[in-house]
């Protein structure tokens, strides 16, 4: 192959240019902005300081941070709990039905999460379906206040993020070699041992990828918190948004965003390690 093939140069060059200009550079700018000082007239003043990071530990913001981590962790755990058996059953479903069953997960995966959050709003509102059903069944005497609670936010995130957990889990479970399980059974391993020592380690990349796709958005989806959680600042996402829109404290917002990026880095690293281990086939 000739070395200076213009086609090759253009194809690779264009992508490199784009990724550097619109992915790498912006994130570096966020890191830079996070150690600058808030300005009165401009967005930032070029005085270096770590005060934005220190403010993240201020009890006022630390509460939001911990609350948000809790909500995202709870959502991720529920997604995993609900999604793992579901993905497993999908891999065991009749081959004839599987494309349709998968499609029914893929459609919500691509559907606007704003629209889906709104659908949850309809179900949960005081005059909504859930309350009317419970009233009709005589389970409650008067409508419950379901909206604008933390549980509503968790339910909303569970609803919008569940497909993002199911699909990576399905991909991991489908790759699982049934012969490994048979071998373990022949060697006398019990069901629980097989699950803990073989199935979990081999599907760990899927578990981590799914958690990555539910946990990080779970920290950031400010509109779910707005629509289902009321006016309180619940998520890191709301905190970041407010710094850029109303409080106009860009360095502080940037620092919170760097925190999210670091969390992402941590999870990606865990994913990389688990994938390498699973690929070696030795848990």
């Amino acid at each position, binding site marked *: 192959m000739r070395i200076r093939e213009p*086609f090759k140069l253009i*194809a*690779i060059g264009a*992508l490199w240019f784009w990724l550097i200009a619109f992915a790498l550079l912006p994130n570096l700018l966020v890191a830079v902005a996070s150690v600058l000082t808030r300005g009165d007239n401009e967005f930032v003043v070029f005085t270096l300081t770590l005060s934005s990071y220190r403010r993240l530990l201020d009890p006022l913001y630390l509460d939001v941070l911990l609350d948000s981590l809790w909500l995202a962790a709870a959502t991720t755990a529920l997604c995993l709990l609900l999604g793992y058996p579901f993905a497993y059953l999908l891999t065991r479903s009749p081959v004839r039905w599987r494309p349709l069953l998968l499609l029914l997960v893929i459609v919500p995966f691509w*559907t606007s999460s704003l629209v889906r959050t*709104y659908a949850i709003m309809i*179900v949960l509102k005081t005059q909504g379906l859930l309350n009317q059903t419970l009233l009709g069944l005589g389970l409650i005497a008067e409508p419950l206040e379901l909206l604008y609670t933390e549980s509503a936010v968790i339910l909303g995130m569970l609803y919008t993020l569940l497909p993002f957990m199911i699909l990576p889990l399905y991909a991991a479970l489908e790759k699982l070699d049934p012969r490994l399980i048979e071998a373990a059974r022949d060697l006398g391993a019990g069901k629980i041992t097989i699950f803990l020592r073989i199935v979990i380690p081999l599907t760990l990349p899927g578990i981590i990828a799914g958690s990555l796709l539910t946990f990080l958005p779970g920290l950031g989806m*400010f509109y779910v918190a707005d629509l289902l959680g009321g006016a309180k600042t619940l998520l890191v996402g709301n905190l970041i948004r407010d710094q850029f829109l109303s409080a106009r404290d860009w360095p502080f917002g940037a620092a919170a*965003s760097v925190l999210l990026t670091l969390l992402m880095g941590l999870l990606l690293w865990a994913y990389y390690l688990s994938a390498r281990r699973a690929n070696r086939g030795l848990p």
Partner: protein
Amino acid sequence: MTGKRLVQVAYLLLVYGFLYIPIGVLIVYSFNDSKYSLEWRGMTWEWYETLFDDPDLLQAALNSAWIATLSATAATVMGTLAAVAIYRYQFFGKQLLNALLFVLMMTPDIVMGIALLILFASLSLPLGFWTLLLAHITFNIPFVVVTVLSRISGFDRHLLEAAQDLGATEFQIFRRIVLPLLMPAVVAGWLLSFTLSMDDVMVSFFVTGPTFEILPLKIYSMVRLGVTPEVNALCTIMLGVTLIMILMAQLLLREKT
């Protein structure tokens, strides 16, 4: 059916019910001839008609469709070329390029949104059409690359080697052999990008200005005021568009090479 099988089917149905009942309720109520009550009062198109009488809304929908078309097209061109290059060539920094694409796809929307906002602010670009377009192209590219790459993996390398032996240039090989074989995945990538762009709230929230309104943000501001049948109708239309796009993309991706 054994008892165990029954429990399994019930579990699948339960989760599917959870995924689809709220959407179903939304769609049904968009046709209900009653503004406030939950009761079914008969079928109406009234809420859809109100939508089409709102010029601001129509403008926002048009803007969104325009941005989605342009960004999907640009991302598809760049993403397809990149996927082919990643498959065909060894080059310096290939691993890093792959890693960057993966990270870009995994980046939380809010992080990407403010990163691009800071970039545009430091370039003093006014927020609006152009900034929105650049942002949408950026988040669409990795999805096109992944979609196209997944189809290339099934390629017969001999075809390309034969063309090379016969003296075809790299561009000729791309234009005459690779692209026609990849077409279904390329179109699917375009459709998925269009959907992503049409539905995006988070990134757009930070990178568009008051001069250029788009549909998802318009819906967001309407939804904040509460549940109304007009919003039900609007959301149903959005669902319909997404559904059509995804079904087409899935059909294309399932086609055999």
